[in-house]
């Protein structure tokens, strides 16, 4: 399941855009039906308090007008819903209040031009862009424009690694532009909101402490060259993906905006550009249009951006009905798709819909996406429900079945079941048990967030000892057990590791209870119909193991093969796990004992 991005919109502004005053409940229902979630209703002053921390915000709180805001969770693939403009557009089309505009790009006689130099190919090879002409900002639109870029950077741009957006006041710069990559000391400019010019190296140092920007530095830091965009007069537009130049920054008064998106993933760059155009070209002198940017590739190939020509996806009427489980006419399907911004035409010969995908709906890849949109517009909860006629028998996994049977037997023998983590620290599995890591046993994690989890546990004993230690205040004796999987390296398996089902039981109290644990082993063997017989059944052979006390430790053999170990837990191990009383433990392989897989 996906982590959903959250969009914050001012309630009043949203209602104005929707042209209707919804109650919170009505709006919540609309969201549910459409497939977004009204997560929280709060006020702007409260919001700021949450962001700034209580102390600083107390002073602000009184001064701020308390504006009601909606926090709306949206699907991770609907980039067009990441701002007020897109949310309102989608909901208005969904409510049949609006037709989706026809977004167009205009090829002018002398287009703005950007040339890519070869050095960029080693660090950030792609750039796309466009010009928004005669745009009218006000503070609401301007803030939304900036916030949308932030949201895109966080989501589809994968924290600027895949795509980075730069927006510039075109009237402060002059084309043609060049997209270059240069050694950091050769790049000198004043970054956004700084007065002084500095080298790229100094800029990187400056942002080392910047809470927002420091997270992006790693993307280019180790590269010998940094990406940079210049205008004709060597003004720096941006040093993607870190920062724009101060020279070309946009303001409320900006009339003409140059958008550039540099990328390592050209498809995502296109989606980001399309989204910005779809959301903000409505404020242009000629609404819903933008002006092409001519990009000259390293091979001299000229490409005009954006490419707003809609994609086509075809979906048969029958397929859609089959997938949803309804029986709708082509006309009805077309009407429903219109509410989802998808314009469809019936190709009568094949009874197929020819569906036009606008630049706002890059999430549509295939006919199944079209079927889903029919279902959403039809209303998921209006679809007739039926239990599929699929006739199959129930079947348990044999290993799980025998595990459950043994769990019951062991609990009946007076042991209480515990449930411990599959991950542990290296020391818990080895040093603390005075066991040596042979390097061929434990599966090691590369990036754990906590030191508690360095490896997959190769045995259950550490978790059992930790639980006994934690529960040491309980009346004694304490008798615990667990049946679950450990993970061990194994070269026979495609991943080089495998699960193995183990049983671990422990007795702790005023005496070690070695005979109690021994008795449990006998009981388990009796239940498994395994006799005490070195050749035909099980037997115990004295053994040495760092976790157990010398002379009170034995291997458990099944027909001569080792399947487990038991003994009095070594006082040193008890000390390592903070257990102030004696204990005995047993750990055996259930796969080997039961023969079940």
């Amino acid at each position: 399941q996906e982590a959903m991005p959250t969009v914050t919109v001012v309630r009043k502004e949203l209602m104005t855009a929707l042209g209707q005053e919804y109650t919170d409940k009505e709006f919540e229902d609309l969201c549910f039906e459409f497939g977004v979630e009204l997560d929280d209703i709060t006020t702007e002053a409260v919001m700021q308090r949450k962001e700034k921390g209580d102390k600083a915000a107390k002073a602000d709180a009184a001064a701020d007008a308390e504006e009601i805001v909606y926090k709306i969770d949206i699907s991770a693939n609907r980039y067009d819903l990441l701002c007020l403009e897109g949310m309102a557009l989608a909901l208005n089309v969904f409510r049949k209040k609006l037709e989706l505009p026809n977004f167009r790009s205009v090829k002018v006689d002398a287009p703005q031009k950007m040339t890519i130099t070869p050095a960029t190919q080693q660090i950030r090879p792609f750039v796309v862009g466009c010009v928004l002409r005669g745009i009218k900002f006000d503070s609401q639109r301007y803030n939304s424009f900036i916030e949308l870029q932030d949201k895109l950077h966080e989501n589809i741009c994968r924290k600027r690694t895949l795509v980075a957006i730069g927006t510039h006041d075109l009237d402060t710069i002059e084309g043609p532009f060049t997209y270059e990559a240069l050694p950091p000391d050769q790049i000198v400019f004043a970054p956004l909101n700084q007065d002084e010019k500095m080298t790229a190296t100094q800029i990187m140092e400056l942002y080392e402490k910047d809470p927002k920007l420091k997270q992006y530095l790693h993307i280019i830091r180790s590269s010998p060259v940094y990406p940079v965009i210049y205008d004709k007069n060597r003004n720096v537009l941006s040093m993607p993906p870190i920062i724009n130049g101060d020279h070309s920054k946009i303001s409320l008064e900006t009339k003409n905006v140059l958008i550039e998106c540099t990328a390592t993933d050209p498809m995502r760059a296109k989606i980001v550009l399309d989204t910005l155009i779809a959301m903000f070209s409505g404020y242009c002198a000629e609404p819903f249009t933008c002006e092409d940017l001519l990009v000259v590739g390293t091979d001299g190939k000229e490409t005009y951006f954006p490419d707003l020509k809609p994609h086509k996806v075809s979906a048969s009427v029958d397929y859609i009905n089959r997938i949803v489980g309804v029986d709708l006419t082509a006309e009805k399907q077309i009407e429903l798709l219109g509410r989802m911004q998808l314009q469809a035409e019936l190709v009568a010969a094949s009874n197929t819909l020819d569906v036009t995908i606008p630049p706002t709906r890059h999430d549509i890849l295939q006919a199944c996406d079209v079927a889903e949109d029919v279902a959403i517009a039809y209303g998921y909860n209006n679809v007739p429900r039926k239990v599929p006629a699929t006739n199959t028998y129930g079947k348990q996994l044999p290993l799980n079945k025998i595990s459950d049977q043994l769990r019951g037997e062991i609990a009946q023998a007076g042991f209480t079941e515990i449930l411990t983590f599959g991950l542990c620290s290296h020391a818990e599995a080895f040093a603390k048990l005075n066991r040596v890591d042979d390097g061929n046993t434990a599966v090691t994690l590369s990036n754990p967030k906590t030191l508690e989890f360095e490896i997959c546990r190769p045995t259950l004993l550490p978790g059992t000892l930790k639980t006994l230690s934690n529960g040491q205040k309980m009346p004694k004796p304490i008798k615990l057990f667990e049946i679950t999987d450990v993970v061990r390296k194994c070269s026979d398996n495609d991943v080089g590791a495998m699960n193995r089902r183990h049983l671990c039981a422990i007795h702790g109290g005023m005496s070690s209870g070695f005979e109690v644990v021994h008795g449990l082993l006998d009981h388990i063997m009796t239940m498994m119909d395994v006799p005490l017989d070195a050749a035909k059944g099980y037997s115990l052979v004295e053994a040495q193991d760092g976790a157990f006390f010398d002379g009170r430790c034995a291997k458990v053999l099944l027909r001569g093969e080792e399947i487990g170990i038991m003994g009095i837990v070594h006082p040193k191990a008890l000390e390592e796990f903070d257990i102030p009383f004696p204990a005995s433990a047993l750990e055996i392989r259930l796969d080997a004992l039961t023969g079940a897989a």
Partner: protein
Amino acid sequence: LIVTCATMAATDIEAAVLSQLQAGAIANSLDFAKQKGYDHLAVIGVLKSLVSDKYVVIEPSDHEGWKLTDEGEQCVSKGSPEAQIFALVPDDGASKDEIEKLAGAMAKVGLSQCMQSKWLRIDKDQGGKIFKNEASVTDAVKEQLAAVVKGTFPPKQDLDKLKKRKLVASANYKTYSVAKGEEYAPQRAKAATDITQEMINDGSWKTQKFKPYNFNALGQDTGAGRLHPLLKVRAQFREIFLEMGFEEMPTNRFVETSFWNFDSLFQPQAHPARDMQDTFFIKDPATCLSIPPEYMAKVKATHEVGDCQTGGPQDPQASPIKSLGYRNTWAEGEAQKNLLRTHTTAISAQMLYKLAQQKEFTPKKYFSIDRVFRNETLDATHLAEFHQIEGLVVDRNLALGDLMGMIEAFFEKLGLKDIRFKPTYNPYTEPSMEIFHWHEGLNKYVEIGNSGMFRPEMLRPMGFPEDVSCIAWGLSLERPTMILYKIDNIRDLFGHKVDLGMIKSNPICRLVK
């Protein structure tokens, strides 16, 4: 030994009381105690015990009583302060200083009392020297106090004086009159706590008296072992799936390849879940050793351009997938990275792949409940691992309506009705639905799971024909368990910090009563 003496004394008293009652009632328990030389409190103890077995009935009377304070005791042994001071003064008198020096602490009280009763006088003519007024005096206070000890109290005005001087303190007491009770017998039968083997053998249970049992106390702990609450709930979910004809998948495989965990599910390689921070990647063994090459080529093509050379035994026509794909390069190296599976759907993919390799398609209903891992910072609602419950049905011509009906039937077995579905997004399902149910307590719809139909971009490269669909849903085991057992902190449920007492007292899991 002390206990034995007390018991024996009690037995003696009991015999004396019962024998006395044969002659007639006991008017006053205190008199009785004095007469027999018993401690009155011990007698009361015996009486109350006899009352509980209805051997006697008793009637209390309240009495005013007095006892000496420590100071009062001193008076009895050494005389009152005034008498002591009087004795100190020689016939030719003494100075106040001399008297205070000799008498110490009691000088002040003693002198003042002597002056009040005019036993002494101060001669101002002789520089305040103190002289006796009487040749000898009677120490009435001492006598009164001695009488109090014996239970004889002086007249009220004298008693008030003693009280004011803190020589006596109030000690009210009860005495009892005693008469035969309905179960009276001259000898008390010994009450037993339990029926013994001996009683059964010799038949003495017929006449034996038994001590009353305290039904308000708890019985003895059974010493039984218990199963873990989360796994008790797991058992119920397993049962539901089995009742509904689902087959359990072999999910005992925590280490997985990125290929099965992500790529086979058509999850893009640039997906945020593949970030190092969200997923546990494996340092050792870091990469997998084998991925089925033919299938991998199809997955690669589907990611890159949305189509592949489909077809196989079940799909002889090999109709195209016709997807736009992700239009970006797909790297095998990324797919080979080992990780701890983030969902059991990695196993579902392998089961479906195997199913698609069969000559003939057979419908299947699969389920699993097993651990999955997320590289989370631990808090009250997040652990690095939890149990995922997953169910899926693969058959020809399944629809979204089938999925809804299946989910409704499943949750009805959990006692959850009024199920609603909300559109959502999952990378590998389309259509996708979040599952909500009406929660009576919270008075709102609450999310309980996620579901969808696997995308053709996932099923078709495996080799399934175009008309085969797979509907699936999933939820966590921990969340319903926490709601069911009202547990707020997930660490109280899963892991070594769990309260063993909670495991012991946790009831049977009954999802529907």
